[in-house]
């Protein structure tokens, strides 16, 4: 991490920002009606990333663990809530399940990354932990979001099949196994797909960042590999976790399926 990078000034940022005008012009000419959304999105990008930069700079300079933990908790809670914000079929307890699943999976995987894989010295822990957790959270969030959505739609579509299996003597696990399998599969596929094409279709974000910061390409590639494996583990664990928690809410210990608890989002 002793590479060099070119520092950006505000006027350089302003040149890049002016390019958004191109998108605005396209929207105007083609009457897409996206100008206001585009302006808002650009403004949010500036505000959110500036705030993140300032907060991280402050946290890195202070170097206190409780601030780091507080930020990591806040990131985790927002990810947990965002993961199920657009879920089509909801049930009581879905938010809590999502937060538990994302918290347990991404913190465990981040801990493995920090202490077992990268073996970060204590003076760099603050600098490493937040970006690593952020990347893992982002992908786990996607897995959970897709997985729980599919779980709900599978159960709604296959309600009669699930009940027929129960009526024939299936345990709740046997009756729910196929919807669970489909849901976990759906949650894991995007991560597997991105592992398939990584480095061919695009240079991934973290590797790009490290290359710009002057890290040797092979080292940057190795870091990216580590991240991909961590992301895969986080997404798989998070998806399995949220689906199993949902299963426990929708199937009683008396081997009954409670489809009435699944409510379609209005």
């Amino acid at each position, binding site marked *: 991490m002793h590479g060099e990078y070119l520092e950006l000034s505000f006027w350089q940022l302003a040149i890049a920002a002016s390019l958004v005008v191109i998108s605005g012009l396209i929207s105007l000419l083609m009457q897409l009606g996206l100008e206001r959304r585009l302006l808002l999105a650009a403004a949010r990008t500036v505000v959110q990333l500036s705030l993140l930069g300032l907060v991280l700079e402050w946290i890195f300079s202070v170097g206190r663990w409780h601030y780091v933990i507080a930020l990591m908790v806040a990131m985790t809670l927002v990810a947990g809530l965002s993961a199920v914000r657009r879920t089509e079929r909801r049930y009581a307890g879905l938010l809590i399940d999502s937060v538990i699943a994302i918290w347990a999976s991404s913190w465990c995987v981040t801990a493995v990354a920090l202490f077992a894989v990268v073996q970060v010295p204590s003076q760099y822990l603050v600098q490493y932990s937040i970006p690593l957790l952020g990347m893992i959270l982002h992908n786990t969030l996607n897995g959970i979001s897709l997985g729980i959505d599919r779980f709900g739609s599978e159960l709604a579509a296959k309600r009669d099949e699930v009940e*027929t299996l129960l009526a*024939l*003597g299936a345990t709740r696990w046997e009756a729910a196994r196929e919807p669970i399998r489909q849901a976990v599969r759906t949650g894991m596929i995007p991560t597997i797909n991105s592992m398939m094409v990584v480095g061919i279709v695009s240079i991934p974000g973290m590797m790009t960042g490290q290359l710009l910061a002057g890290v040797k390409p092979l080292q940057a590639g190795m870091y990216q590999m580590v991240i991909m494996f961590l992301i895969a583990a986080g997404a798989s664990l998070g998806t399995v976790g949220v689906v199993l928690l949902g299963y426990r809410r929708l199937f009683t*210990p008396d*081997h009954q399926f409670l489809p009435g608890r699944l409510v379609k989002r209005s």
Partner: protein
Amino acid sequence: MNNSDVLLQAANLTRCRPDGDARLLDDVSLSVCAGEKLSVTGASGSGKTLLLRALALLDPPDAGRVCYQGQVVLRDGVPGFRRAAIYLHQRPALLEETVEAALRRPFSLSVHRRKRFDRGRILEWLGRLGRSESFLGQRVGELSGGETQIVALLRALQLDPTILLLDEPTAALDPKTTIAVEELVRQWVDDSAQPRAIIWVTHDADQARRVAQTTVQMQSGRMTTD
């Protein structure tokens, strides 16, 4: 009637609407003994299906209990109980596969692991219902509603349950096959060395008289005897 003859007993089964305003099942009690054939009639929405579902423990009741052979069915015992008391849905769900695969499917469940698919027995039953061996190779998706009901019935019969909870099992069948199904089920109860019984839900009062010794009526979630 000896107490030991009672196979299935329900006491004070009550089920309310989720909003709690009305009772879908209102304090229903019944018992079914070995060899008994009971029919349940009533208008649509009177609670017939809910009663069968509650007896099969598919829905959690708000009050009341179900006993099998004198014992309250407990959590771990529920799959075993459902092996003995099989509920047949009016519109049975079958996966997209052949009829034979659909008939074999229950044997993959842990509760039926010790049993084996008996093709000869199925062919004999199919013959009595006017279907040939080629029926086994048909895709489930190509079957009529009535044929789907036949598959679901045979799938349950081959598992040798003690009680069949039949929810309008002939609703989509032609009159000739309906009579054949009634006769098959009657013999299944009467000609068995094991204690067996049925509860048959039907809209048809004539059918209720043909298939059962006793008929009870459901009305607004309550049970009345004819």
